[in-house]
């Protein structure tokens, strides 16, 4: 039997070990969906292509495997764009397959045509337009390889309908030949030696750990380095879970909404050891005031991340895991009693705080932590809900916290929770949401119901686009332009019920814990609608462009 492009596609998914593919069909992609029906790959039909993209992303972040999504040409494909950009910013391996009009029609303004390789050129790690079916096995092999290796990222493969239907007998290749793509995994020995010397000489070191540690599975190495040389550890938003926040050396998150003690420690440190992090502006604040007394070691697999924002003294271009393994034997045990005492004092003087009255969003997050014994997989939307989720849950394992960091995509959390639940069917999954964000992809509740996923959606409902409202309160004299939602929000309990999910409204503090317990016990998706205090702020806060030790609010 002669193979057609669609057979090659399904064969590639099987060879790559793909379990699930998230997507929605359309005219030009019917041949692929037709072959999926008879394949072992399970199709997850979402209700919007953006949901498919984020679900593939959530699946990838929760599992460490490549997530795959599929959409038709034109609007189906353009609906994937936000999800692709989200994955690109946060280095998430996804392969996005888009249908395209037949090759003779490309460029003719055909029905449902969009130039997807053009549109996604700067938001993918790489992309392909396949014009000859005999290129398809090689392209798919390269797509998966590029997505998962080096600094991972999304790869888009645009597949015209005549290519999906064209015949070719080539088999799926075993190897790739990409002469221009050779990620540097092994850190330079001399640089690693210099890094070790700097660590051994340091009196006030801080580990600043990002998502790269989770991607490269090097949390054990970070733990060993931190405990061996008594180095306190702060993480970025995407690094949450890379170091157990219950550990005495944990400083939790740094930056704009980081803890005071993390920001003070970085500011007063004499050595910043950055691992798999990229000195984002939300982390550094004002650049010239960031760790002014410190030498900087930067371990990262992506050379473009090094010395991009901050001048690095000792760059190590390489995989975090291998580089840390090479570094560890060269690092001497140390105790740094004075430094750790200083940090302990900051922790005592400036813990994260909120006023325990009324129904506070921080309390809700704390109770989710308590009720799940810290075991839940947490996804978030973007804004205040995301920052409270970051601050008030203690993360202890990699891949436990899933959030759109770089792009900051509202509407990410629910579809990401769906993807995460597919990756971790036995885990308790919570999407910590806001009433604004949840409405940006609420249609995916139908997906959760259809596939009987027990995802829990905790809406911290304050009736505002809360983070923007907070900025307006603090910097725009409370002129709430475009941020009031409460006057027209739907009844989320009824919305849940209309979709066939459970809905629970919570209006008092005492109801919080029992409602969370009920949601965890339910085998269905549950919306928990928490009527939280409407004008609560996320503190501490470093105003944009200010030094990170100049925080406002929330200081006990």
């Amino acid at each position: 039997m002669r193979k057609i492009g669609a057979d090659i596609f399904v064969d590639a998914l099987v060879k790559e070990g793909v379990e699930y593919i998230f997507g929605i069909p359309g005219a030009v992609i019917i041949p692929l969906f037709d072959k999926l029906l008879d394949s072992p790959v399970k199709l997850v039909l979402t209700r919007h292509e953006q949901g498919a993209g984020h679900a593939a992303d959530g699946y990838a972040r929760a599992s460490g495997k490549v997530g795959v999504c599929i959409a038709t040409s034109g609007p189906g494909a353009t609906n994937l764009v936000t999800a692709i950009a989200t994955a690109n910013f946060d280095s998430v391996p996804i392969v996005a397959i888009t249908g395209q009009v037949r090759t003779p029609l490309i460029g003719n303004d055909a029905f449902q045509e969009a130039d997807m390789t053009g549109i996604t050129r700067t938001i993918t790690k790489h992309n392909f337009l396949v014009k000859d079916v005999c290129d398809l096995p090689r392209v798919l092999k390269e797509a998966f390889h590029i997505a998962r290796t080096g600094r991972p990222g999304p790869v888009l493969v645009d597949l015209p309908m005549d290519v999906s239907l064209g015949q070719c007998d080539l088999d799926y290749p075993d190897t790739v030949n990409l002469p221009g793509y050779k990620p540097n995994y092994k850190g330079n020995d001399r640089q690693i030696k210099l890094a070790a010397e700097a660590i051994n000489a340091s009196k006030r070191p801080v580990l600043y750990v990002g998502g790269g540690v989770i991607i490269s599975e090097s949390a054990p190495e970070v733990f060993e380095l931190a405990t061996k040389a008594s180095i306190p550890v702060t993480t970025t938003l995407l690094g949450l879970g890379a170091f157990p926040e219950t550990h005495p050396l944990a400083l939790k998150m740094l930056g704009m909404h980081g803890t005071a003690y993390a920001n003070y420690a970085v500011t007063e440190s004499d050595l910043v050891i950055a691992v798999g992090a990229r000195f984002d502006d939300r982390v550094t604040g004002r650049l010239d005031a960031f760790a002014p007394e410190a030498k900087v070691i930067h371990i990262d697999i992506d050379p473009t991340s090094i010395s991009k924002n901050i001048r690095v003294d000792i760059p190590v271009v390489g995989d975090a895991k291998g580089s840390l393994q090479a570094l560890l034997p060269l690092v001497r045990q140390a105790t740094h009693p004075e430094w750790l005492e200083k940090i302990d004092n900051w922790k005592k003087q400036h813990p994260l705080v909120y006023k325990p009255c009324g129904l506070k969003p921080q309390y809700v997050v704390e109770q989710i932590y308590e009720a799940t014994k810290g075991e839940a997989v947490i996804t978030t939307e973007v804004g205040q809900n995301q920052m409270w989720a970051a601050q008030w849950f203690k993360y202890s394992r990699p891949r436990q916290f899933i959030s759109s960091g770089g792009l900051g995509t509202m509407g990410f959390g629910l579809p990401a929770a769906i993807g995460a639940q597919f990756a971790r069917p036995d885990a308790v999954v919570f999407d910590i949401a806001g009433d604004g964000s949840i409405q940006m992809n609420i249609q995916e509740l139908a997906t959760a119901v259809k596939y009987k996923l027990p995802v829990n959606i905790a809406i911290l409902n304050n009736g505002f686009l809360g983070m923007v409202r907070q900025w307006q309160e603090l910097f725009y004299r409370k002129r709430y332009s475009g941020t009031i939602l409460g006057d027209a929000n739907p009844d989320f309990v009824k919305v849940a019920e209309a979709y066939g999910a459970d809905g629970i409204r919570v209006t008092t503090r005492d109801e919080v814990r029992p409602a969370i317990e009920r949601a965890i016990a339910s085998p269905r998706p549950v919306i928990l609608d928490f009527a939280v205090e409407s004008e609560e702020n996320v503190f501490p806060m470093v105003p944009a462009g200010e030094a990170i030790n100049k925080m406002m609010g929330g200081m006990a």
Partner: protein
Amino acid sequence: MKHVISVTVENKPGVLAHISSLFAARGYGIDSLAVGETEDPATSRMTIVTHGDDQIIEQITKQLRKLISTLKVQDLGETEYIERDLVLVKVNVASGKRGEILEIAQIFRGNIVDVGLKDLVVELSGHESKILAFIELLKPYGIKELVRTGSIAMARGAK
């Protein structure tokens, strides 16, 4: 500061777009860009003239290397190199001025590649500074049309 960057890429559709998109998306300027096939038909070579401080140039070369379709990226500022630009100038020839223009072209070792009653076209290749000096000298006669290739460049000595 001006930098000449030589980029060897896979000779495939979309590669030029990847490179120009990178410059546009990150706000780097392109002063000129010339591209053509090399001794190996599977590869093309681009000469990109850009500008920026050391940090920006470092980012540009790293970002170019990161693209999947680039095979080699060389900042020629780090070596001795030869740079050439080609220009075609269609210049007015007023009565009695033809001799002067031919003389200027000869001094610069330009070639006359087309002759009309009222104009002629001069071809000149050389370093950009020579091209610019040549254009300045022709301006008083009236330049009707001008087209340049942008620089191509190559490091001196053994590959």
